[in-house]
Every structure is written in structure tokens, then in C-alpha cells.
């Protein structure tokens, strides 16, 4: 009798799993093919174009806190020109920026302000956590430094270094551009705006 019960339970489990799988696939198919084919092709291609435009004109908001800010300024200067990658103007106001490069150590007093500035940025927005202190607290494991800025804002690219050279930060920006291009036209990019 016990064996038959077990067999029935196992069968029920299998059937439920199948049902769930089928539901997922049906939902995905529904989404894919809702509307006409013309519509989906156009939105995906259009999404790619939008992504290309976004990645080539990332405007950073100045959030230079400490030593990393000096290297961020060095990245923006003539030797490692960030302007040739689209980060031409460092906007002072977060309302006009779409990239926040958190460069420097974030203290407990500064964390609410970091959150406030991030909230003031309009969607879609990306965050690069520059340097060791912003990524994980760096060499300061103590009462006053937030151990990683991803406890406060969601981070897209982490750039390690103390301070990371401008070439490293530039590589981080390029990686972010690749990430934007990869996500463009898909659900993830839509979630950023919605």
C-alpha cells in the first residue's frame, strides 16, 4: 500500500511540474507572438537602435567623493579621453544624467544622500561602482564606511582598483556599453524604463 501511495505522489508531482512548465512556455509563446510578426520584429530592432543610442551617449553625473574622483577626472581629460566614447559632458545635476559613477568611499553619513541622488536620476539609469571602496568597502572595514555601495543602489559594473587607473575605468564604461547593447530590445531593457 505504501508503495502505491508513493508512486501516486511521484506521479502527481510529475504532472504538476509538467503543468507549470507548459504554463511557462505558453506564456512565453503568448508574449512572443502577441500582436503581428511585423510588430515584434520592429520593436526588437527598434530596441536595438535605442540601445545603441543610449550606450553611445552615456552622460555621467558627477559623484566624485574621494581619491577615485581624481582618476575619474583624469579619465575625462585629454590623455584618456572619455568623450570619444560618448561620456562627453559630466552633468552636475542628476536629473540630466543617466550614468552615476560612484567614485570613492561612501560613509554612513553620505549613504542617504547617495540614495537620494540616485532616485533623482530619471530612468533608464546605470551605476558604475568605481574603486574598491565603492565595490566592497575597500581597505576600510570599519564603523563608518558602507561596505559596498550595492547595499544602497543597484550596481551594473564594478571596477576594482585603489584607485583604478583611468584605463580601467574606461574599460568599465566599455563593458557597460556592451551590457546595454546586450540587453537592448529585450525584457531587461524594458524593465529599466517601466
Amino acid at each position, binding site marked *: 500500500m505504501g508503495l502505491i501511495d508513493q508512486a501516486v505522489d511521484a506521479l502527481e508531482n510529475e504532472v504538476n511540474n509538467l503543468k507549470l512548465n507548459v504554463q511557462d512556455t505558453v506564456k512565453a509563446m503568448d508574449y512572443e507572438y502577441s500582436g503581428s510578426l511585423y510588430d515584434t520584429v520592429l520593436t526588437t530592432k527598434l530596441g536595438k537602435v535605442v540601445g545603441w543610442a543610449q550606450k553611445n551617449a552615456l552622460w555621467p553625473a558627477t559623484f566624485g567623493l574621494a581619491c577615485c574622483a581624481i582618476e575619474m577626472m583624469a579619465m575625462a581629460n585629454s590623455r584618456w579621453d572619455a568623450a570619444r566614447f560618448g561620456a562627453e559632458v559630466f552633468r552636475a545635476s542628476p536629473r540630466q544624467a543617466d550614468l552615476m559613477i560612484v567614485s570613492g568611499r561612501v560613509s*554612513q*553619513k553620505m549613504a542617504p544622500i547617495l540614495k537620494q541622488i540616485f532616485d533623482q536620476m530619471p530612468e533608464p539609469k546605470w551605476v558604475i561602482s568605481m574603486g574598491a571602496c565603492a565595490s*566592497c*568597502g575597500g581597505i576600510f*572595514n*570599519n*564603523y*563608518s564606511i558602507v*561596505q*559596498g555601495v*550595492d*547595499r544602497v*543602489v*543597484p*550596481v551594473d559594473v564594478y571596477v576594482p582598483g585603489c584607485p583604478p587607473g583611468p584605463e580601467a575605468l574606461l574599460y568599465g564604461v566599455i563593458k557597460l556599453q556592451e551590457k546595454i547593447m546586450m540587453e537592448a530590445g529585450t525584457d531587461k531593457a524594458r524593465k529599466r524604463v517601466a
Partner: protein
Amino acid sequence: MTSEEIVEKVKEDLADLIQNTDLPQGDAVIFVAPDSLESVAKFLKNDADLKFDYLSDVRGVDYLLEEREPRFEAVYQLYSIDNQHSIRLRVGIEEDNPSVPTVSNLWKGALYPEQELFDMFGINVEGHPTMERLIMPKDWEGFPLRKDYPLTTETVAFSHNRDFKSELVKSKPPTR
């Protein structure tokens, strides 16, 4: 004036206000009780030979680990621009209800460092216009630079504590 001359002059003129003097590595140091700090400081600033018109630094020390009485100490580093000599004033402060009079009416540059003394050690500075937290957030509890205040509240995941590294990573609060 050399450090020995400074110490001699101070010992002559302020004999009963000073607790002790010292000459470590060529620096002039005098130990003062908190009650006599104001008169000693005024004398040091206004005396014609000494003329310590520049306050280089105000720092606090916590001697909890050395188990010394008094527990706290406020150290004032003074410098004379015209005579180019310096002196160190060490004021021993008791553990319960620590307080020290302010020197900000003599040297206005002492305002921020004394606020920092309060913020970091809990040493109350009497006569200071704004006795509130300077560096830490206004609602912070505890005095960070005291020796019994913990340095950090979390352990970092390294490769040598790899056994519980996965738990450490899990215990990181979710983003946003």
C-alpha cells in the same frame, strides 16, 4: 627658546598649576589638570617670551588598554610663530563625566577640534558654543574613538575563511 628653557620658565611661573613636566625626544611637555587649563593656556599665549599664538592641534587619547588613571587625555599642541618653538599640553580627564574647559576664546581654531573631541570620545567641552556631533551623523550613538567601541561589525569574506564564506555572502543584505 629650547625645550628645556621653555619647561624651566613654565615651572617657575606656574609652579602650582602644573602637575608634571617631561622632555621626550626633545619636545617640551607639561601635564595640567582640567581646572587649571584656562589659566595655563592664557599665560602661555600672552607671555612675552613664550607667546604661543598658534594652536596646531587638539587631540584626544583613550588609555583604557594601558589601564592608566585618568582614562582620557586631551593633548594640545601649541606653536609660536615669532619664536618658532612648540609645546605640548596634556590634560588628564577622568572617566565618569569627562569634561574640559574650552580654549576657543583664546584660539578660535580650537572650535572644530573640540567638537571632534566630543564626537569621538564623549569629552564634554564646557563653554563651547555648539556641543554637538561634527563628523558622525547627528543621531549616531556611541563614541567611535574610545577603545571599547568595536572597530567593525562584520567579517569580510577572504580566501582564508573560505569555509564560512558562503554564509557571509548570503548574509549580505539584498540590494535596493
